[in-house]
C-alpha cells in the first residue's frame, strides 16, 4: 500500500520507495571517478570532509552523536570526530542556535542541526534578529559563519507540525543565505560551500530524499551559491523547481515528453542568492513558466520567483507564469489527504499542457 510506510524501517530515513524518487544525473562537474551514493551519505561526506579540513567546524544538535540524528544522516561522525565536535544537546532549538551564533562570532564554524524544519519557529529570533544582523549591525566587524541544517518536505505521515517546508521565512531575511539541494551531488557541493561561507546559511534537506541515490565524484568539489542548474533542457515550457519538487518536475517532464511537449527543468539551488538571470533566460527561451516548490503556496517561494520571471521575461511570455506550492492548509495526517497537499507530477504536467494550449 503505497500510502503507508515501510513496516520494517527502523529509522526515520524516509520512505525507501520514495514516490518522488528517481535517479538524477548531475548535470555538471562530475568526473570519471564517481560513485552512486545517497543524499544522506553526500551530506555526511560533506560534513566529514569539512571537519577534517577545518578544526573549527563542529556539529551541535539533538541526538546527533551516537544516534546520528533520527534520520541517521550523521551516523559515524561522532566516532571519527568525538563528542567534543559532534555534540548532543538538550532539546533547545533556540538555545543551540544562539550558542551557534556566539560560537560563530568568536572563531568557530558551528553546524547547528534543527531536526525538523517545523522547529525553526522556536529559533526564529536567534536566526533572524541575531545571526542575520550581527555583521551589518556591527558595521561589518563581526561575522557569523554559521550553518543551520534542517529539513523540509511532507508525505511522511508526520502531520502538521513535522512536515512543513518553511524556507520562505528565512529567504525573506537579508543577512541569511538559503540553500536547498535536490540531488546528492548538489547536497554535497552546496553544504561544503555553506560551511566555508562567512555568513549564516540555512540549509534545507528534503527528509524524504535522504535515500535517493545519485552520482557523486570521489574528488573534492564545491558548488557556488547563486547558480541555478538546468536539470533537464527543454524548449516549450520552463519548470522552475526547488528541492523535493525537482524530481516531481522531472517526472512531469517525462509525462509531457510523451505528449510532445519539451519541458525545461531548472533548479535555483539557493533561494538566496537567487540566480534570477538564469530563471528569466529560461523563461524567455520557452515563453512559458511554472514555479513549483513544496512550501505553502501563498506568500511563498513560488511568489517571488514567479514575479521575477513575470517581470524579467514580460515581453517574451506567451502565458501567465503559474505557481504550484503546497496546498494552503496545515498538513493533514491521513495519507489520503496529505498526498493531495503536495504538487504531483500529473498535476504539474496537466497545468503545463494547459499553458501550452493543449
Amino acid at each position, binding site marked *: 500500500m503505497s500510502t*503507508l510506510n515501510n513496516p520494517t524501517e527502523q529509522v526515520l530515513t524516509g520512505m525507501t520507495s520514495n514516490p518522488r524518487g528517481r535517479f538524477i544525473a548531475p548535470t555538471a562537474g562530475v568526473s570519471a571517478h564517481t560513485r552512486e551514493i545517497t543524499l544522506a551519505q553526500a551530506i555526511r561526506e560533506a560534513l566529514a570532509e569539512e571537519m577534517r579540513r577545518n578544526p573549527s567546524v563542529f556539529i551541535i544538535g*539533538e541526538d546527533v552523536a551516537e544516534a546520528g540524528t533520527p534520520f541517521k544522516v550523521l551516523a559515524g561522525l561522532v566516532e571519527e570526530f568525538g563528542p567534543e565536535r559532534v555534540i548532543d544537546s*538538550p532539546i533547545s532549538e*533556540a538555545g543551540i542556535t544562539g550558542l551557534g551564533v556566539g560560537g560563530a562570532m568568536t572563531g568557530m564554524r558551528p553546524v547547528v542541526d534543527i531536526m525538523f524544519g517545523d522547529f525553526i519557529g522556536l529559533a526564529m529570533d536567534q536566526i533572524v534578529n541575531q545571526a542575520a544582523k550581527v555583521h551589518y549591525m556591527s558595521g561589518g566587524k563581526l561575522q557569523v559563519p554559521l550553518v543551520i541544517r534542517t529539513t523540509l518536505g511532507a508525505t511522511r505521515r*508526520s502531520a502538521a507540525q513535522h512536515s512543513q517546508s518553511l524556507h520562505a521565512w528565512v529567504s525573506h531575511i537579508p543577512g541569511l543565505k538559503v540553500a536547498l539541494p535536490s540531488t546528492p551531488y548538489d547536497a554535497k557541493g552546496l553544504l561544503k560551500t555553506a560551511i566555508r561561507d562567512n555568513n549564516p546559511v540555512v540549509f534545507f534537506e528534503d527528509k524524504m530524499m535522504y535515500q535517493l541515490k545519485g552520482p557523486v565524484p570521489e574528488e573534492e568539489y564545491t558548488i557556488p551559491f547563486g547558480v541555478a542548474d538546468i536539470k533537464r533542457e527543454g524548449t516549450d515550457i520552463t519548470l522552475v523547481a526547488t528541492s523535493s519538487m525537482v524530481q516531481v518536475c522531472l517526472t512531469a517532464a517525462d509525462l509531457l515528453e510523451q505528449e510532445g511537449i519539451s519541458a525545461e527543468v531548472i533548479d535555483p539551488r539557493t533561494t538566496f542568492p537567487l540566480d534570477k538571470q538564469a530563471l528569466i533566460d529560461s523563461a524567455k527561451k520557452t515563453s512559458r513558466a511554472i514555479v513549483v516548490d513544496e512550501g505553502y503556496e501563498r506568500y511563498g517561494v513560488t511568489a517571488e520567483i514567479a514575479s521575477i520571471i513575470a517581470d524579467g521575461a514580460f515581453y517574451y511570455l506567451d502565458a501567465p507564469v503559474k505557481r504550484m506550492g503546497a496546498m494552503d492548509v496545515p498538513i493533514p495526517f*491521513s495519507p489520503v489527504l496529505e498526498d493531495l497537499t503536495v504538487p504531483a507530477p500529473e498535476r504539474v504536467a496537466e497545468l503545463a499542457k494547459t499553458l501550452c494550449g493543449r
Partner: protein
Amino acid sequence: MPHSELSGAKGIPVQAIMGDEQATALSQEQWLHMYEQMLKIRIFEEHVNELYKSAKMPGLAHLYSGEEAVAVGVCEALRRDDYITSTHRGHGHCLAKGASVDRMFAELLGKEAGYCRGKGGSMHIADQDTGNLGANAIVGGSTAIATGAAMSSKMRGSEQVAVCFFGDGALGQGLLYEAMNMAALWKLPVIYVCENNLYGEYTHFSEMVAGEISARARAFGIPAEEVDGQDVREVHAAAKRLVERARSGEGPAFLICNTYRYYGHHVGDISRSYYRSKEEEQEWRTNHDPLTLLSRWLLEEQGVDAGVFKEIERRVTAEVEAGEQFALDASYPEPGEVAEDVYA
C-alpha cells in the same frame, strides 16, 4: 467498567459523600477501574505496534507502554471537564482522560471516524468532550497552552484544573519556564506533570538536564513533588492532593513521575542497544511494572480475587479488538475534506 460509569464518583471527593467503610469499598473499585484503564492503554499500544508492524498504520507512533500509571493516576484525580495537554507520546493520556479506543484507532489510521477526522493522527489527538486539549508534536509546545487554559478557568471562575503532561526532554525548552513563571505569579490552577522516563529520544536525561528537576519548579515558587511513576497509588495520591490544592486557588504545582517506556522512542526504534541495555529494560518490566504492582497489591493486600483481573482483561481485550476492527473498517475522509477546518 467503562469510564463513564464512574464519572459521578470522580467528580466529587469520595470521602465527602460516604462513610469511611464505604470509601474503602469504593476505593477498591476505583483501584480496579484504574487497573482497567492502565490495562486498556497497555493493550491498545500493543495493537498499535502490531498495526505498525503489519503496515496498516501510516507513519509512526510513540508508545506509552510502561508509563500507564502516570496518565491514569493523574487523570483519575481530575474532573471530566478539567483540562489536559498531552505530548507526542499521548495515547495514554488520551485514554486515561476518557477517550474511547475505537475513535482513537480510527484517528491513528487516518480515518474519518477518528477524533480529528484523520487530520491529527497519533501526535495530535484532541478530544474536547473529555477536556483533552490535544497531543502536541512540539516538545514542550503545550506548556503555555495548559497554563493559558488554567488562566481561562480562573478568569471564568469555573474551578477547572489544567494538567500539563510533558517529558524530561521538555525541560530543555525555555517556554516551560516562561509558563511556570506566570503560573506562579498569578496562582493559576495548573499542574505540570513531568514524565521522566530517563530518555529523550536516544539520549539519557542526565546528559540533557543539569541540576535538580524539582529545583526548576521551586525556583519559581512552585511546590514540586517526586513520585514513583510506576506506582499508580503513589501517583494518584500526589495528584489528588495537588489538584485539589490548585482547585481551591492555591496555585500551580509540579509533579515528577519517574517512569520508563518499554518500547523504543517510536515503533520503529527497535535496535536500542547503543543507548540503553536489555538488562535495564528487563529490570523495569520485571520489577517496576505498573500493572503488576497494582494487581499484586490488590490480590495480596486487598483480597481481590484473581478472577476479577481475568474478567477485566477479557473485557478490555474485547473492547480494544472491537475498536481496532471498527477503525480498520472505517472509511478514509473524502478528498474535499483536505481544505475544510482550516478556518472556523
